[in-house]
């Protein structure tokens, strides 16, 4: 039986009561898109496996659950999060804690970081920078057959806003610890906007961290604008639990001479789907999409990437790796689209997975659409086991089989981690991955982020 009509009727109820309910006090800049988005959602529905982009991902496990609450935060909710103190030793970052994707004290104004970067809630952004928000909001997100994007546009009440004005350079990473916490099973949607203007630089580390055992489902949309000569990096570390679902849609729009990189490190999660859209809109831009996931039990981890080469002389890479054990399943769907005028494009894609059990599975699907003639594109996918020769080499030096396997898996994973531009972070994430591989990283165990 199709689980979706019931879910859609619950969401419709939520929609109908929104003005007195979840969207109370929401700024007009966001509200003006909602009605059309909701009807778009109703038209597209919740994606199923007939949808090419969800061919290997069954959302029922997460969307079919009956959540008790749709999260739309009240000031009280943040008290718990405030208590959650987070310190990152010798990792020089500017750090903040969100709750289920929402900025505490959403009604207060934006804060300014040293160097001149603004940070705060979307609600505050609409008040403080209305014309900037108007210029960028909902301009990069695309529905393309995926009803979950308009669902977010219709009903997300708030989220995180980051703004690096022209030529502001903040070299420290901004770390966002996003706590997933609730006393009830919740569905939550956050909507985020990042604007990195011409010549500015920003580096973002987002750690999703589940701290209570409830069922969660998160549907996140993040739009990123990267101006001319600007630089933007985002690293996501997803450490949730088997009853949590996490759907992210990240749209990175790049102008001339810009650089962007996205790195999704999925350590744990029941169902995770990260969709990363890169649009190279100006010449000489460079973009990188990286992903690493470690999945076991019944977990499903999917990565969807689309790189749009809309301008000439741009470079892109996609590198995704996964290690799958038990009954875990993974999917990689990587698309490269080279538009007619995007001559001298270099686009590279690679997906490699290691399967540790007979029952784990990995599906990969590269898709290349090339309309220009002077283009270098390559793609490759491998799914295999650990290299027996390498394993023997390590064991022949006295390293026991278990440790040798771990070293090889770690080596395999490090190939993605090594692309993280900040050394201290690279080491942290190396450690996290090692702990995860050793089975020492349980749901609430202190990860290298050292929350307490």
């Amino acid at each position, binding site marked *: 039986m199709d689980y979706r009509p019931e879910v859609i009727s619950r969401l419709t109820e939520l929609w109908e009561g929104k003005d007195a309910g979840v969207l109370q006090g929401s700024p007009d800049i966001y509200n003006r898109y909602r009605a059309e988005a909701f009807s778009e959602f109703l038209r597209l529905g919740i994606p199923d496996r007939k949808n090419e982009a969800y061919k290997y991902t069954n959302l029922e496990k997460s969307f079919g659950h009956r959540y008790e609450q749709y999260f739309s935060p009240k000031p009280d909710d943040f008290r718990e999060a405030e208590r959650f103190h987070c310190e990152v030793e010798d990792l020089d970052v500017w750090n903040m804690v969100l709750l289920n994707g929402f900025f505490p004290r959403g009604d207060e104004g934006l804060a300014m970081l040293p160097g001149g970067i603004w940070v705060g809630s979307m609600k505050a952004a609409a008040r403080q920078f209305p014309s900037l928000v108007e210029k960028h909001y909902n301009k990069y997100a695309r529905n393309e057959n995926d009803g979950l994007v308009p669902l977010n546009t219709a009903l997300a009440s708030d989220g995180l806003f980051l703004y690096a004005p022209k030529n502001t350079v903040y070299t420290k990473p901004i770390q966002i610890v996003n706590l997933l916490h609730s006393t009830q099973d919740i569905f939550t949607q956050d909507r985020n906007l990042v604007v990195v203007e011409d010549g500015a630089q920003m580096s973002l580390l987002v750690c999703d961290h589940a701290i209570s055992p409830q069922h969660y489902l998160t549907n996140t949309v993040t739009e990123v604008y990267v101006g001319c000569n600007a630089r933007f990096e985002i690293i996501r570390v997803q450490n949730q639990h088997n009853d949590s679902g996490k759907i992210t849609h990240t749209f990175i729009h790049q102008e001339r001479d810009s650089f962007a990189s996205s790195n999704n490190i999925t350590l744990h999660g029941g169902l995770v789907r990260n969709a990363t859209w890169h649009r190279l809109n100006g010449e000489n831009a460079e973009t990188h999409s990286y992903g690493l996931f470690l999945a076991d039990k019944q977990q499903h981890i999917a990565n969807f990437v689309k790189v749009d080469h809309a301008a000439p002389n741009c470079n892109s890479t996609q590198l995704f790796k996964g290690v799958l054990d038990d009954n875990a399943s993974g999917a990689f769907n990587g698309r490269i689209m080279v538009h007619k005028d995007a001559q001298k494009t270099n686009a590279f894609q690679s997906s490699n997975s290691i399967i540790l059990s007979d029952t784990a599975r990995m599906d990969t699907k590269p898709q290349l659409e090339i309309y220009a003639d002077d283009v270098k594109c390559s793609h490759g996918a491998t799914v295999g086991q650990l*290299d027996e020769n390498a394993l023997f080499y390590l*064991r*022949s030096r006295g390293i026991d089989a278990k*440790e040798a396997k771990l*070293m*090889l898996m*770690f080596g395999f994973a490090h190939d993605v981690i090594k692309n993280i531009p900040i050394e201290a972070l690279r080491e942290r994430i190396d450690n996290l991955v090692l702990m995860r591989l050793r089975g020492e990283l349980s749901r609430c165990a202190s990860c290298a982020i050292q929350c307490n």
Partner: protein
Amino acid sequence: MQTEFLIQIKDLKASIDNKEILKGLTLEVKPGEIHAIMGPNGSGKSTLANVLTGREIATVTSGTVTFEGKNLLEMSPEERAREGIFLSFQYPIEIPGVSMVNFMKTAINEQRKHRGLEPLSASEFLRQMREKKELVEIDSALTNRSVNEGFSGGEKKKNEIFQMAMLEPRLALLDETDSGLDIDALRIVANGVNKIRRPDTSVIVITHYQRLLDYIVPDFVHVLYDGRIVKSGGPELALKLEERGYDWIRKEAEVSEETWTTDRK
């Protein structure tokens, strides 16, 4: 009964895919001895190295291997290494993402644990790395990389001997460590082996050519042909092989129907 041998291989037979490769091989090595095993391509030299180190490509069908009085064939590859067996691979493997430093640290500490020793301190480990690198004249930058990744053929061979220096084995098996080396690299590698050796370290040198044996001078030379040791002698046997090739061995082997025995001199 206390054995005087470090390793005793008796009538060893091993097959790959039901094809017999080692056809009854007997070899005994005392502590401190150097034995050379020579023989044409495909005669089973690497297979012998694999069987001794526990690689499961070949299946042992009969015979025994005793190492310091213990049954070697019952041990896992890692146990053999911890007991003091080291193989310098004919074709060292590249392992992307596994750093040389981490690899060596793990290997040394696992071996120390086996001997009931504490892990090496970071500074002592680094000191040893430095010292042993000099011994085999290996470029410092190489040990900051992933294991063998992007190393040239010669660098890979040096790296094998570097690992031998770090691990200080009781028995070193050098499988064609000289192949692919120019004469300078050959001298460095061979001298490295000589410097690493303690008086009771035994070495089995597997090689095609006599030239390595100018540097690592064997006490015994054995000819492996078609899975058996068909001739044993002193260093002069290697010179004779260099001069006359393997054809005369082949003829001798084919003439005779009997099983070759390998009496020690």
